[in-house]
């Protein structure tokens, strides 16, 4: 066997640049909605969401596992109120109707239902609140698993019908704002997924698109299934190498929507979307998942994404959540908290190639509007590593505090004064800041 390249060597080597982070942080609240909206830990969850600067929470209507706004409006209200309580904006996803998709009466009925929901929201929360909400039409229409037989043409027809119904009710409140309707919430594991986005953007009146939404996970297969490697180290290394795909997708989509005023949002992301906890839990809810997600965030920032919605917030026993049904945070939660402390919406960011001696790192430096500076530094190697801050950041002596999680301490953030070095015991996420406040 030849010498292997480290994860970091695979991920790094990219051009440097200075920009402002446009990334709005968010999450999906789906199958765990009950814990999120009604559970005994809902206040704790709300605090968590604030702590990770959550600006958008994607919720779901007209699906089997979330409250039906038609038949159970009080439950749906609690679902939405939980979003508002966290200080976030809802992205309400009108998930689907059952096939056949081409029945014009069904399309009309669905659009009417969506319009009614918008009207009800305006009634409940007021037009001047609801006008800032996001409305996503359908979920993964290109997936033959969940939407067999749904073509782009049919999706487009549904989208237009729904968009017009939304506009009918919300237009009076917009005051010149762009309506935040979007789609197609595309599954990027499907072949020719880009076709859907291209046609969506080119064949729809610009005024009817506020955002494009796309989903990207690191993997969907279990080791050895469908050509995936059997050997755990190779399997994990390949997944980690795919964080770069976030940058590639964002960049491609930016090219597609350039000059159109459309937001570019990664609507679902995580390391592994496999439905079995025994497969995906160890990838999503561990220090591996924490590092994968933070690396993906850096790539999304670098590509100029407007939003990211982690899959998902409240886990309710599933292998995706940032916390479990007892509201115990995962390493990924702690990593997101560190990332959002370091990089806030609107911060000036510099994402630079690391020095040659630090190829195990992926890093973003930021300067906030208050002048405070931070560096978010992801350690991509499962080996131990110690790095000199002076080799990585400008004015290293200004940094006062280092906070980190790593393989030794995946669920406990370790904070300490900055002595000019950062040490990791395996995979890890750290921030160095010039301000002491958490």
């Amino acid at each position, binding site marked *: 066997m030849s010498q292997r390249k480290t994860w970091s060597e695979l991920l790094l080597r990219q051009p440097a640049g200075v920009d402002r982070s446009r990334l709005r942080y968010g999450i999906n609240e789906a199958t765990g909605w009950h814990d999120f909206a009604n559970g005994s830990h809902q206040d704790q969850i709300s605090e968590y969401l604030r702590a990770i600067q959550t600006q958008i929470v994607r919720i779901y209507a007209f699906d089997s596992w979330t409250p039906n706004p038609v038949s159970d409006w009080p439950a749906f209200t609690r679902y939405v109120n939980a979003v508002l309580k966290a200080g976030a904006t809802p992205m309400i996803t009108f998930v689907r109707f059952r096939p056949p998709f081409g029945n014009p009466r069904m399309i009309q009925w669905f659009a009417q239902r969506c319009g009614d929901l918008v009207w009800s929201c305006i009634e409940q929360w007021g037009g001047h609140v609801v006008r800032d909400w996001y409305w996503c039409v359908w979920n993964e229409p290109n997936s033959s698993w969940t939407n067999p037989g749904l*073509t782009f043409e049919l999706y487009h027809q549904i989208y237009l019908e729904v968009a017009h119904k939304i506009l009918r009710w919300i237009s009076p409140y917009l005051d010149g704002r762009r309506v935040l309707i979007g789609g197609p919430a595309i599954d990027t594991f499907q072949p020719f997924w880009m076709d859907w986005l291209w046609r969506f953007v080119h064949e729809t009146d610009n005024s009817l698109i506020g955002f494009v939404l796309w989903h990207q996970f690191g993997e969907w297969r279990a080791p050895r299934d469908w050509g995936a490697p059997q050997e755990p180290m190779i399997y994990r290394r390949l997944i980690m190498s795919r964080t770069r795909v976030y940058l590639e997708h964002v960049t*491609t989509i930016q090219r597609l929507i350039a000059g159109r005023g459309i937001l570019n949002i990664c609507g679902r992301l995580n390391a592994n979307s496999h439905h079995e906890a025994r497969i995906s839990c160890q990838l999503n809810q561990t220090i591996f998942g924490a590092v994968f997600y933070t690396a993906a965030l850096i790539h999304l920032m670098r590509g100029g994404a407007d939003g990211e919605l982690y899959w998902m917030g409240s886990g309710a026993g599933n292998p995706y959540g940032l916390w479990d049904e007892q509201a115990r945070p995962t390493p990924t939660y702690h990593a997101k908290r560190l990332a959002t402390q370091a990089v806030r919406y609107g911060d000036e960011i510099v994402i630079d190639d690391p020095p040659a001696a630090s190829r195990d790192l992926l890093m973003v430096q930021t300067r906030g509007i208050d002048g405070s500076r931070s560096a978010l530094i992801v350690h991509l190697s499962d080996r131990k590593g110690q790095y000199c801050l002076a080799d990585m950041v400008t004015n290293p002596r200004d940094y006062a505090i280092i906070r980190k999680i790593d393989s030794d301490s995946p669920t406990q953030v370790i904070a300490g004064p900055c002595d000019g070095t950062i040490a990791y015991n395996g995979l890890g996420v750290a921030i160095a800041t010039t301000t002491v406040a958490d």
Partner: protein
Amino acid sequence: MIQRHTASESTLNSSAATKVCLRYGVNETDSWWHFALGPERERIWQRLRAMRTQIIRIFLFDKGAPDPITEWKLFKSYVDAVLAVGAVPMVTFAKFHRPLNDPRAIRWFAEKCGEVVWSCLDEWGEERVREWYWCIWNEPNSDWIGGGLSFEQYRDIYERVAHAIVRWLGPSLGSRRAPIGGPAVEGFQPFWMDWVQRFVDELDPALVGFVNWHRYADWRDHGENGAPSNPATHEAMMMWQTADYQSRARSVGRVLPETDVLNVCGEWNAHSHYLPLVRARFNQTQFGAAFGASALLHLIRGGVDAEMLWTGTDESCGYGVLKPNSQPTPLYYARRLCAQYARYGDEIALHSLDNNANGLDGMLIRGAGGRCSAILVHREPATASYDVAELTRDRVPDKCTLIKTDGETGTAVTAKTFDGTATLVGYGVAVITNVVAGCDVESEADWV
């Protein structure tokens, strides 16, 4: 053997290549007989030379290629044709048809490949043969083409074959890297990049000289399998995706070690439909010409070391740029323009031209002897006129010639004195240059 540019020269560590490091090439496969032995072979070779063809990928053990064991003379003529063009062969040991997991079958295949190398050394001498490339298998990740191997199976075969090649070739290489590569990965398959990653990570670096990847924009006809049924939409969508060549080139380049392992796009064209008539509509028309020229510019931007169009000579296969009688397709002229005016080692003065419309792709190139050329690829079916001074920020010299192929020229190029404006009628490619290549000076009649 060609040398890979250092990281600072290519795109490994920078946002864009500063020099053209692309070598031009073609595949000569299904219609190999016309290329090697056909009555118009010498005109075919002449035209391949005019496209500055430096590498020709040939196939063994598939595609109806002559068996080098039983049909050595035919195989020799196949290789001699490559050499007559002035190119080097990339010999592809495409596949075997025995059980993939049978160690005896793998050993038999490896020995067979080794014998081909030994025979080539014997026939053409080590001075020549050490410059050749050896590609192991073709599209192993595709059930249709390569048999749908697992990576582990492929890795075993690769190592066996590579050792068999090195056994004979090694003594002549000296300190050179063995010019052996793979996995010639099919780019439509999900997780195709895993193959590249694992190929680089898990094989002995001493056995890897290049990484070969394939990319077509589409394989579906209008309306087929979710493709747009409106031809204009389908074409526009495909054309938009030429940038994918750049992004894939960078993805591959990024995982290559910082040595002289080459980044090779070993097969590409606009369309790979299973019916020749369908794919010909995309590949062998003005659309295909513009698509191909734009793809080449993106491969240059992406820092690719070599490209091999699928294919050169073509008898009713729907891919090639030359018919058996040597008659060119529009893509032939588009390729020739790119190859003549964006040569290996040239400086990329402008990576793209100042134009807000998606309809134009372009590049400004500076070469030896003060040659300065703007390459314009018009990627829309409508007619458009471009103010070239504006597009190039006044960097095109005085007294230039406009050479173009488009809907007006038909399957040909025309050359005229440049008057400041380039008008392209439909899909097309234009070059504005102060040094006209010989093939563009000579009379059209000689070339059409």
